[in-house]
């Protein structure tokens, strides 16, 4: 399907509605093992345009491995990944090794590989709230600022799918709530699908359309409200957390009206 962008470079409403039907990316029966230890067992996941999907799970659940497979960095032992042809992915890794011996400024990091018009650079940095550090060396940027810079780099590539690995790690509380809102704004503005890896259940509840709970296999998936009631979820995370989540989702449940909910209604085959 051709992707039609209007004059602002944003997706038109018709295109978004059309894109919603086929997933941007779809992984089927993904299996990975390292030596004798199995890391992922028959994992299915898909992300549609205009949808925020959050991957949750305890340490060692295989979240990062799954992300690396979806991005094409590593190949699964079994299973397939289907990407929509020509899919543009913006990726923000969890961390970035930064060494003062490598002389790059934030501006250079952002424009490396693809030169952008200065106005566009300004606009995106404004959007993520990192304009002030444009001329700083990358090695001197703080952990929280780094996440904004990485997000800006991903956005500059006009992604149709945004993959964010722990975007809130090392971000202070005040900036966190700002970033929560930012993700929804980005989704609405760019019409892109967002795949999040997050430990932050607050973010999961507030901004996510669909939660996929991973523990080597997909132990449950659905809307935040659905998984909060799922026994598999409370087994994994503990009763305490799931009760809190259930209470939270009850008081905060809302829909994003800017877009039609693109997820098919009976999307429960993974649970």
């Amino acid at each position: 399907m051709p992707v039609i962008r209007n004059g602002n470079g944003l997706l038109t409403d018709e295109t978004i509605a059309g894109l919603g039907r086929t997933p941007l990316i779809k992984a089927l029966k993904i299996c990975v093992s390292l030596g004798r230890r199995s890391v992922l067992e028959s994992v299915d996941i898909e992300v549609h345009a205009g949808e925020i999907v959050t991957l949750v799970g305890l340490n060692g659940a295989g979240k990062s491995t799954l992300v690396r497979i979806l991005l094409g960095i590593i190949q699964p032992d079994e299973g397939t990944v289907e990407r929509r042809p020509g899919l543009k992915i913006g990726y923000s890794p969890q961390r970035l090794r930064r060494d003062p011996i490598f002389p790059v400024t934030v501006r250079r990091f952002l424009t490396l590989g693809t030169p952008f018009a200065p106005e566009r650079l300004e606009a995106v940095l404004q959007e993520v709230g990192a304009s002030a550090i444009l001329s700083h060396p990358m090695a001197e940027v703080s952990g929280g600022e780094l996440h904004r810079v990485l997000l800006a780099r991903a956005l500059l590539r006009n992604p149709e799918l945004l993959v964010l690995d722990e975007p809130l790690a090392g971000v202070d509380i005040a900036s966190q709530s700002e970033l929560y809102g930012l993700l929804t704004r980005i989704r609405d503005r760019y019409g892109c699908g967002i795949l999040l890896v997050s430990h932050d259940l607050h973010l999961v509840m507030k901004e996510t359309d669909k939660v996929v709970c991973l523990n080597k296999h997909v132990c449950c998936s659905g809307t935040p409200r659905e998984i909060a009631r799922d026994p598999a979820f409370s087994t994994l995370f503990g009763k305490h957390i799931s009760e809190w989540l259930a209470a939270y989702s009850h008081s905060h449940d809302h829909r994003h009206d800017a877009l039609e909910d693109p997820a098919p209604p009976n999307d429960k085959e993974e649970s």
Partner: protein
Amino acid sequence: MFADFFFRALIGGIAITLAAGPIGCFVVWLQVAYFGTALAHTVLLGVALGYLLSIDPALAVLITCFLFAGCLMLLERRAPVSLDTVLGVLAHIALAGGLVALAFMEQMRVDLLGYLFGDILSIGHADLWLITGTVAVTLTAVSWQWHNLLAITIDRDLAAAEGVPVERVRLLLIFLLAAVIAIGMKMVGMLLVVALVIIPAAAARRFASTPEFMAIMAAVIGAISVGAGLMVSLAWDIPAGPAIVLVSGIFFLAGLANPVRKVFRS
């Protein structure tokens, strides 16, 4: 007063540093100096191979370095123990194997010291052609893949996600490093050749605010070191290779006095 051999040494030495500078920058950025050290250990094996197949020893060293670099890349992907250990094991097996192989060739008198410490003043016409050819190919490849090389320097996963062929670019870099080690060995010997790659690049950091400028500065510092080192060695009758390395060391120490922040913000 300057003889032909002196000019050949000067031209060959400067040519080598022009390639060693940019490659050295990637070596210090990616922290893969141990690759260079391991490659340098295979030199004697290459020399023995050259005599065995009766080809030019310098060419044989180049080929051996390429083969070893290929093995290292394969091992890096599926090392049974840590890569550091594998490299240490293989490098010293190669060194010991080279020494034994040379000992077997009784009819050949090999100038072992020449290979350990190099002899820049013995660079001949054929060497000069091999050096300039290798340098030309290296610099062409680096400028052709410059953006991809920078991308994998920043982050391999990010580069892979953005469509950079990470494995191929890394393979290219290790091959280029092998080429620089093979030709640099002639100049300063296998014991000092890694210094030729690392020191000018490390020294250049303090004088540079962008990756491109740092690569150029590394080449310039290397070239000046060759010129000054050769002059000093002539004037004081000291070995040329170590003199060159010492001069580049002085650049590094001088750079430490130059605060890096100031350069960056200017």
